[in-house]
């Protein structure tokens, strides 16, 4: 039976998309709580920065450059993590992209746009979870965490791949939770609202997000956007023994956004019918 203490001493945690944004901030939080971290993403320089931050916090860190949509690379990620760290306790499927797609009309979205959006945001989580599932099942212990989004529960104009994939992530969580329950593997998803992680993102993205931030906070019932640790601590809870009887759940940290539909605080947004960039 769990003791519900919630610390992460000696845990090995893999975080995909760990170079920037929420992935990096979760890596730092979990390292502070005693975990060793394997960070995987495509670009090496940001991964190295995250790894350095993990080591500063006293954790071991391993960098494995990985494109989560390439199953050969995904398999290699787990082989390497096991070889170097000795074991894996938690997989956090955090890799995802949102940039740019909303600038296009529906009829301009190419087959390739669609595939990339679904592959990175949904299929990658399946490939990584599948790769670790046998190992977790055999050792009768493990935790898989997925990153969904408030947009996985609601629609949004022109956000085809992202919203569709994130809704898929929510149900992938439930299916894996039910399938792996008998192997003592727990599967849950984290649902972030608007969270500021932009300082570790590319500059052009930072600029767009800074403009949106001012508008967005008006839609959040608590009156401000989230900070990275608002998600980091959810991850801590779900990685730790405090959540041992919890599976198939969605853990929402969004300042009350989904409870009210991002529009019930008296700040009902005026939306142009000609909206391009949201």
């Amino acid at each position: 039976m769990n003791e519900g203490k919630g610390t992460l001493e000696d845990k090995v945690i893999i975080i995909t998309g760990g170079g920037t944004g929420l992935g990096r901030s979760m890596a730092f939080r979990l390292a502070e709580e005693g975990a060793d971290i394997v960070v995987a993403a495509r670009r090496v320089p940001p991964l190295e920065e995250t790894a350095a931050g993990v080591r500063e916090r006293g954790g071991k860190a391993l960098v494995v450059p990985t494109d989560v949509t390439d199953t050969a690379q995904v398999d290699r990620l787990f082989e390497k993590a096991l070889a170097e760290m000795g074991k894996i306790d938690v997989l956090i499927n955090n890799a995802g992209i949102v940039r740019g797609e909303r600038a296009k009309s529906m009829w301009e979205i190419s087959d390739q746009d669609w595939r990339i959006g679904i592959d990175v945001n949904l299929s990658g989580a399946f490939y990584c979870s599948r790769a670790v599932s046998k190992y977790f099942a055999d050792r009768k212990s493990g935790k898989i965490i997925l990153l969904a989004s408030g947009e996985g529960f609601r629609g949004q104009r022109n956000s085809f791949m992202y919203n569709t994939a994130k809704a898929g992530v929510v149900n992938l969580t439930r299916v894996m939770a039910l399938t792996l329950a008998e192997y003592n593997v727990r599967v849950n998803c984290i649902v972030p609202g608007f969270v500021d992680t932009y300082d570790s993102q590319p500059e052009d993205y930072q600029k767009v997000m800074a403009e949106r931030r001012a508008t967005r906070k008006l839609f959040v019932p608590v009156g401000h956007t989230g900070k990275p640790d608002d998600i980091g601590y959810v991850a801590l809870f779900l990685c730790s023994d405090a959540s041992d009887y919890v599976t198939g759940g969605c853990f929402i940290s969004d300042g009350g956004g989904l409870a009210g539909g991002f529009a019930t605080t008296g700040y009902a947004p005026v939306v142009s019918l000609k909206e391009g960039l949201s």
Partner: protein
Amino acid sequence: MTAKAFQIKGKVALVAGDSKLWTKPVAAALAGAGADIAIAAKSSPILTEAVEAVSKTGRKAIAIAIDVTKAAQVRKAVHQVIAEYGRIDILVNAGDIHFFRPFVKIKSAEWNKVMDYNFKSALNFCRIAGKQMLKQKNGRIINIVSGLAERGIANGSAYCVAMGGVLQMTRALALEWALKGITVNAIGTGWFTKSGQPIDETLARYIPVKRYGQPEEIGSLTVYLASDVTEFTTGQFMYVDGGLMAHA
């Protein structure tokens, strides 16, 4: 030791409502994470046991024996907590009496009883302790309900209505108090039993993790929602149910 991030050292928690399952483990878990505790429930061995469990952790505990269905007594209880501790940081509404009967056979008195213990107790504690939290500009309200707040079940109309009421109150208050420093969340419980008590093996097969929960397993999520790190989490309903609610 509870992880540092989840510790609630020196905070004051009021555990309210009559429940055979949740009162003691919730009070013990909050105390284990560093809070001083007040427990408001009817005079019973559960109240005594809960206070003993808190005392073992070295935190302060006061027992307030009241009829939780009476608003005047709830008011007195809340004022007693403020008088003794100076404030209320955390309110946990744990009221839970089970009642299942075909809809047409439920008597008015039975409806009233289920609503009183499972809904109105939480309502009155939120109203009265909420005032104090508004004054403090700070508070955590955690309502422990059943998964049946969200789902229906045959013969469970009264229970479902009462639990659903607490859940909807959770969501509405979360939004109403979102800018006041108070978070309001609900925990959805699945099938639980105290250790050593017999379980229905047939039912257990329907739980994805293939076992009943133990009441102690509610404690860690309660502590998490009571801690400082969840200030951006409000209006939410989270299950501790071994995967039960993830079923279609």
